[in-house]
């Protein structure tokens, strides 16, 4: 763990001042329900952000707007210099830069682990099959699951499936990784293996946005913790400050609920 923190601090100095994600006055409604209220957020390259908040606060919707799984209705979102609009080409270009890991893994059950990982490189990046397989095995090795490459997702445990899902996203060599509650559908004993994988990824300098209630993970890894409630960003701060000296009453109440359980 010490070594990990050392790596993290070392990366701190390498961090460029390049803006990866820019959100300005982003608003979204589901019918009459205002899910995202005037969100302003800037994420720098290599930054690791944890987003927390009560359910229904709009945190998942926020990150799903970044790769257009949800469309925002007002405001601007710029990802790696490309503005998200109705333009399908822009959306495709952004999706190639942004990897996503879901709460329920969403692996393709009819494909083997290896095929899950090679599908997008082969079809989206037009990579030769052999090359894609070598790449996939390399990433599967990194999430320590290469020995299961020829199994089907249904034969793996939840933790293993989620690690495959991470490898699948990494095979597209994304610049940004989005995690939508990656551990909340897992049995408790499997949470650690997934978090460890994410911590390693963070140590490599990946830009990460992570919706999670794993506050230990937030403390170790995050550069910034964002607290959302009722569609707004209520408070954002580096983890020590966020956990020790929360400014807002709503944040304090939320932390009180999740930390003293």
């Amino acid at each position, binding site marked *: 763990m010490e070594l990990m923190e050392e790596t993290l601090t070392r990366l701190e100095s390498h961090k460029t001042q390049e803006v990866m994600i820019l959100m300005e006055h982003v608003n979204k409604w589901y019918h009459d329900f205002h899910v995202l209220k005037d969100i302003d957020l800037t994420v720098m390259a290599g930054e690791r952000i944890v987003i927390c908040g009560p359910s229904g606060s709009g945190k998942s919707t926020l990150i799903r707007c970044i*790769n*257009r*799984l949800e469309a925002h209705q007002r405001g601007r979102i710029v990802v790696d210099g490309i503005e998200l609009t109705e333009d399908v080409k822009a959306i*495709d270009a952004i*999706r*190639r830069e*942004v*990897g*996503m890991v*879901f709460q*329920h893994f*969403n*692996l*393709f*059950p*009819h494909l083997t682990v290896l095929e899950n990982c090679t*599908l*997008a490189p082969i*079809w*989206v990046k037009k990579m030769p099959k052999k090359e894609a397989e070598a790449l996939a095995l390399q990433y599967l090795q990194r999430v320590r699951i290469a020995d299961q490459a020829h199994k*089907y997702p*249904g*034969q793996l445990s939840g933790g293993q499936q989620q690690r495959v899902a991470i490898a*699948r*996203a990494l095979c*597209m060599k994304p610049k940004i990784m989005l995690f939508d509650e990656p551990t909340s559908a897992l049995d408790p004993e499997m949470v650690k293996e997934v978090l460890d994988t994410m911590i390693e990824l963070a140590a490599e300098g990946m830009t990460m946005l992570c919706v999670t209630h794993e506050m230990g993970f937030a403390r170790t890894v995050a550069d910034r913790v964002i607290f959302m409630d009722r569609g707004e960003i209520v408070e954002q701060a580096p983890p020590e400050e966020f956990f020790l000296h929360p400014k807002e009453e709503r944040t304090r109440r939320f932390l009180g609920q999740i930390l003293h359980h």
Partner: protein
Amino acid sequence: MSSSPSLRPPVVRVDALRWLRENLFSGPINTALTLVALYLLWRFVPPVLGWLFFDATWQGSSRADCHPGGACWIFIGQRFGQFLYGFYPAEERWRVNLAALSIILLAVPLFFSRLPQRRRWAIGYFLFTPVLVWWLLYGAGILGLPTVSTDQWGGLMLTLVIAAVGIAGALPLGILLALGRRSQLPAIKIVCITFIEFWRGVPLITVLFMSSVMLPLFLPEQMSIDKLVRALIAVILFEAAYLAEVVRGGLQAIPKGQYEAAHALGLSYWQSMGLVILPQALRLVIPGIVNTFIALFKDTSLVIIIGLADFFTTVHRATVAPEWLGFSTEGYVFAAFVYFLFCFGMSRYSIALEKRLARSEKR
């Protein structure tokens, strides 16, 4: 491994008497039902078997050889060629056989899942075989094969042509309609819904009738479309509407997360559908698809309404011909048997396919 003894599951003894008591005589009502069933079997099975096999006439060359009291299968033997080929000229029938053989032999590599070039072979097969078969059957004078007009096609061969073309045409069209019905583009959605509801709302017999009687009225006089082609188009459009609804059922069963994961990876709409959604959705609805195919196979007999002599019509006509008058039971039993063979074959194949696909995911 450990010292604690592992318990074996209790052994269930299979005992004939016990099985009888549990399954057939477990109470007064079951006992009564068993006895009634046994009586009915004893009453009906021997005479039917006797008629079909033991008292039947198998050898001979005319109706004079038929014994009374049993079926006379000479009739079927004598007319077998007609049942298979209709009025296809006898000296050209080798072309039908060759077509059937090439369909089967060229398909063999598709069943070896280890073959590296299997996908390429499949594409080639579905593009090339129809052309080859059309050339063999129709000829059109190409490479010296004389034309055999579709009026002369008939019998089982015609039934198989209609069923195969119907299936091969209706499935892709049905898939497109199902996707269109779920499209977010209103124009496409409305067109697909209208199409599906229209064809589902009209009986096939009406569609066939209209294709042969009404359609020529709307077309310019010098333009005529072959009767068989019109029937084929009618069957394809009609069955596609049914298949579309079957496939839509499968599409609805796929969780939203699968679409999201495909999109998040950057797959396009058609890639997501073709690589992620449809392979799963079609697998789920294999029973429904095969059900539609079986119905289609039997519905081909309706082409009699526009004057095409399919397998059933050929058999029927043979039974009313003067030289074999009075042997209609043999004819219809034989027709039923042949239809059953094909339909049961499709059913068994679909079960085997389901099992194989389920196994590949679980093991």
